[in-house]
């Protein structure tokens, strides 16, 4: 049974500070500095969890966050990682994934039905569609991890951006010496290590001190390099925040991960990895038991053994899988200390005691061929079994970075083979095991990384790999009754992997996906290597022929809060946003902007308000904020030439002081944007684009201008300038009272543009006709927009002015038959189909889309945008409802509204050429399948002769 020893030299605890906490409802005490796992171990809690599938009791395995045995629910937070989470006063801790508590988990019965849960069980069970729902409900309940608290408060976590010349991942001997070497070469270094207590993992104290004394090294303790992204961008996750670190070079000193031996009941509480138990002992003063058996297959086992012996932990025996231990002083010292070694023996079965933890180990002789003599087992009484049989390279992040590995038979380990530019590896990851060699390899890698980042000359040292083999080639012992676990996260036994291979999933990638080996929270850190060995044996090939699977980011699971963004959705507002709100604006999104859809008036419905806004424009005056339109200026001798090339119309012959509609096409002749182009001077044009298209149109014009090298410059003034459309029969009269510009028809004809002042503010005034009434578009500096808006509203109010929103504008323009790019046209609509050839100057020498239009002209349109009308009593179809002719789709409605002005429903529809003739009856299929009758009519529907553009029309 695990228990706390007296104060150990170099421990991380503050024993004067006692912390109270509870586990599964019982109260315990730990010390400041304890992790959850160490505190529970010290308190003698035998097991902390139930396993994922069979609900077997599980205790500490790696004490390094390399397994999911110590995932805990802490104060309502699920899946807290007990090995690496510091204990705090008052923590309420419980196990995860139990039914009725850890000790009495009702689901533990599953352990006895293991035979009914074969590998690939989900694929097999879920095969039946009929039973799918049943299985799904059952397994969602049975399997899984901690419980998510849906009522948890939102926590914002900061994201930081870091920059360094050399990033060193891992602060063991090689990482520390790499960091120091890089810093000495002049590089700014970031040193990341996941352990809570950066003790150097055996590095000389002088090296640790030198690293801490260096001003050029920034430390990131208790931080995981969780993911590698392009161009040396590494996600550094700490408990509280994420740092996005951009490095010029990266040294991987990520080391190796201790691997378990696989034998029956190797998952019993009390069976641990020796490396973890050694840390538990040295840093936290926790002994693994009172009678410890080592399972050994490398030198590290003997070194650990001596350490345990020195600290007074009784050792029952060392079970050595190899025929003989290394020829090394540590081995001799063990023998001298009276520790019995059983060479060529293997663990056959761990025996479970009454408390659910290990009580004894059955060992059996192992012959040279690796076969076990099950008839000659011996029983070793013990309460802890510590495994030191091998290592796996912590190459996950290295593989993510694009590195490749190869398997070295002599070391039984994957080592880096190809290093991408700016990537360096050092230490045990490299297969370098002796401490002096690790330090030298670190210096080499640090120097080379610094040189890559531009500091100093690279070291040309060549460091030899270890001559002794630190890992057993096959630490896996078969047992007829199984329960010899390979993957502790996913409860996978040897036979599960063999069965998967037998069923045809016999490559490492397929085996992983089918059996789920390595797909648990620890992502195969303790299981992938053994799984590969089992697969290699099954196929009769070497491990090197199989290759590693690349695990995805994150390297360790990372709390979602560290990854979550800020819910940041920027929204643009025009300068008169507050004025809209004061009028009761109901908002809608338009591109990045918010715009009034309509203005709510108390006592009116939405439809009534929109109707009243339309009515105000037709009968009196209205004002709409069109400041969201893209607004661009082009200056220079070639300004007209640029516009001639990018728009379909002709602008070189546009007179100064006049405007002209602009239609923009892409190379295939499709309409992509439109706007109004005003010529303010011989070499100055000012033009608008659609709201949604402003950024992309401007960017494309910049590209074309750069490509053609014309002598003109573009300026995007969308945000600089505000714009209103002031329209209605009273608009001229009201505006004249506010401006020095002569608005008489002869001085300021339709489609003219003038500069002057409105309400004391410099404006550009354009006489436009989009809504079908006498109207003026007023463009001014954004900073003066409020004054102008207020002056227009104040003057207009006595005449019945209403501001109108996007909805009313859609009705008004539809009554005039104007199409909206992107609503009435789509990504295939050309100007022939949209009846917009009046805006195209085909005789120009060149414009974008011209060549395609020639082809389209010859081919003839495949569809035609036509006006349609429906009787007033007919229910309104929706946009995109289909036009049906002889049971086939023959078009679609693109815009439709009820026009109170015209007392009928009108719309635009994209129709097949056969239907596109005035007077043709068509049928529209609506949501419920009903067919509505409509007729093709001529557009514009309202004021087809444009009489209302005349200044004298009313007055």
């Amino acid at each position, binding site marked *: 049974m695990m228990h706390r020893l007296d104060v150990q030299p170099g421990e991380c605890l503050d024993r004067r500070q006692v912390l109270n906490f509870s586990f599964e409802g019982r109260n315990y005490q730990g010390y400041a500095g304890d992790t959850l796992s160490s505190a529970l171990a010290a308190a003698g809690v035998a097991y902390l969890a139930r396993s994922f599938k069979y609900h077997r009791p599980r205790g500490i395995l790696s004490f390094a966050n390399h397994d999911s045995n110590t995932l805990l629910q802490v104060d309502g937070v699920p899946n807290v990682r007990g090995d690496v989470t510091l204990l705090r006063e008052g923590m309420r801790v419980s196990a995860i994934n139990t039914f009725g508590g850890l000790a009495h988990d009702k689901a533990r019965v599953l352990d006895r039905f293991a035979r009914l849960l074969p590998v690939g069980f989900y694929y097999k069970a879920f095969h039946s569609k009929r039973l799918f729902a049943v299985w799904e409900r059952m397994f969602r309940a049975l399997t899984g991890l901690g419980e998510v608290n849906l009522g948890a408060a939102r926590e914002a976590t900061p994201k930081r951006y870091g920059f360094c010349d050399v990033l060193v991942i891992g602060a063991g001997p090689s990482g520390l010496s790499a960091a120091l070497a890089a810093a000495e070469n002049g590089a700014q270094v970031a040193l990341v290590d996941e352990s809570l207590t950066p003790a150097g993992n055996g590095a000389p104290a002088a090296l640790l001190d030198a690293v801490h004394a260096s001003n050029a090294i920034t430390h990131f303790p208790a931080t995981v390099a969780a993911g590698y*992204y*392009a*161009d040396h*961008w590494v996600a550094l996750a700490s408990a509280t925040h994420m740092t996005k670190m*951009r490095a010029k070079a990266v040294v991987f000193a990520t080391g190796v991960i201790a691997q378990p031996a696989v034998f029956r009941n190797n998952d019993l509480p009390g069976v641990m990895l020796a490396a973890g138990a050694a840390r538990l002992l040295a840093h936290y003063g926790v002994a693994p038991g009172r009678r410890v058996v080592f399972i050994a297959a490398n030198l590290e086992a003997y070194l650990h053994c001596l350490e345990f012996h020195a600290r007074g932990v009784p050792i029952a025996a060392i079970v050595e899988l190899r025929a003989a231990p290394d020829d090394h002083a540590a081995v001799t010292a063990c023998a001298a200390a009276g520790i019995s070694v059983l060479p060529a023996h293997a663990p056959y079965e761990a025996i479970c005691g009454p408390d659910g933890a290990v009580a004894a180990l059955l060992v059996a002789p192992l012959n040279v061929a690796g076969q076990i003599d099950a008839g000659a087992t011996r029983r070793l009484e013990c309460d802890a079994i510590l495994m030191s049989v091998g290592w796996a390279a912590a190459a996950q992040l290295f593989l993510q970075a694009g590195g490749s590995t190869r398997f070295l038979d002599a070391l039984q380990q994957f080592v880096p083979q190809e290093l991408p530019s700016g990537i360096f590896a050092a230490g045990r990851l490299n297969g370098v095991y002796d401490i002096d060699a690790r330090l030298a390899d670190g210096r080499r890698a640090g120097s080379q990384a610094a040189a890559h980042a531009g500091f100093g000359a690279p070291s040309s040292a060549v460091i030899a790999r270890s001559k002794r083999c630190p890992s057993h080639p096959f630490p896996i012992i078969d047992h007829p009754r199984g329960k010899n676990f390979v993957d502790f996260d996913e409860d996978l036994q040897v036979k599960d992997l063999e069965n998967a291979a037998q069923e045809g999933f016999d490559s490492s990638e397929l085996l992983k996906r089918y059996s789920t080996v390595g797909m648990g929270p620890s992502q195969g850190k303790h299981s992938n290597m053994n799984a590969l060995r089992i697969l290699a044996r099954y196929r009769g090939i070497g491990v090197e022929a199989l290759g590693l699977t690349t695990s995805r980011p994150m390297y360790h699971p990372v709390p979602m809060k560290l990854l979550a963004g800020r819910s940041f959705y920027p929204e643009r507002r025009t300068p008169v946003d507050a004025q809209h709100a004061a009028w009761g604006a109901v908002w809608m999104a338009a591109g990045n902007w918010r715009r009034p859809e309509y203005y709510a008036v108390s006592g009116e419905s939405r439809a009534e308000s929109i109707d009243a806004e339309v009515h105000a424009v037709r009968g009196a005056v209205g004002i709409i904020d069109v400041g969201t339109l893209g607004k661009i200026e082009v200056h220079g001798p070639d300004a007209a030439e640029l516009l001639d090339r990018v728009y379909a119309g002709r602008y070189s012959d546009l007179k100064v002081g006049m405007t002209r509609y602009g239609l923009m096409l892409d*190379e*295939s002749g499709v309409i992509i944007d439109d706007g109004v182009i005003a010529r303010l001077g011989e070499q100055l044009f000012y033009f608008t684009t659609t709201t949604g298209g402003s950024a992309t149109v*401007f*960017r494309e014009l*910049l*590209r074309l201008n*750069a*490509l*053609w*090298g014309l002598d003109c410059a573009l300026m*995007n003034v969308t945000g600089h300038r505000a714009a209103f459309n002031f329209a209605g029969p009273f608009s001229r009269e009201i505006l004249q009272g506010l401006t020095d510009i002569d608005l008489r028809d002869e001085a300021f004809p339709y489609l003219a543009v003038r500069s002057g002042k409105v309400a004391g503010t410099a404006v550009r005034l354009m006489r436009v006709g989009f809504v079908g009434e006498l109207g003026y578009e007023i463009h001014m500096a954004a900073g003066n927009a409020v004054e102008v808006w207020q002056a227009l509203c104040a003057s207009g109010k006595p005449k019945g002015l209403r501001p109108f929103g996007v909805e009313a504008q859609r009705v008004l323009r539809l009554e005039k038959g104007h199409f909206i790019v992107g609503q009435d046209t789509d990504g295939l609509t050309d100007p022939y189909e949209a009846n917009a050839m009046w805006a195209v100057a085909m005789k120009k020498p*060149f414009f974008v889309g*011209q*060549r*395609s239009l020639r*082809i389209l002209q010859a081919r003839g349109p495949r569809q035609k945008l036509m006006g349609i009308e429906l009787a007033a009593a007919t229910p309104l179809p929706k946009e995109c409802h289909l036009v049906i002719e002889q049971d086939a789709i023959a078009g679609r409605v693109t815009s439709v509204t009820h026009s109170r002005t015209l007392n009928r429903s009108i719309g635009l529809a994209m129709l097949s050429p056969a239907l596109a003739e005035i007077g043709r009856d068509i049928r529209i299929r609506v949501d419920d399948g009903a067919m509505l009758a409509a007729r093709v009519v001529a557009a514009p529907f309202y004021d087809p002769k444009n009489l209302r553009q005349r200044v004298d029309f009313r007055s």
Partner: protein
Amino acid sequence: MKVMVCPLNGPRPVSEFAYGGEIRTSPNPDTCSDAEWSAYVFNRSGSPGAKYEWWCHIASGFWFAVLRDTTRDVVVATYPAEAVRCGLTPLPAGGASA
């Protein structure tokens, strides 16, 4: 996130840039056949390899040409837009890796 070296602004995160498509030479619209023109407008080569591409540094509105090896996702070289006008060095047919 990748870093792109803009000829005007230096190394910047790629989120500051907009991709403008592969740089392709238009056939002469006045002399080419309809089929040639259609092929130019609608067909793109998806084969991996070295390609000239348009990229724009959005904040400064600066367009430039990039020679990018799409197999390795590596920017081999960048050029100002004038280089496109004057004619970039033709790449080997099939877009072999640079």
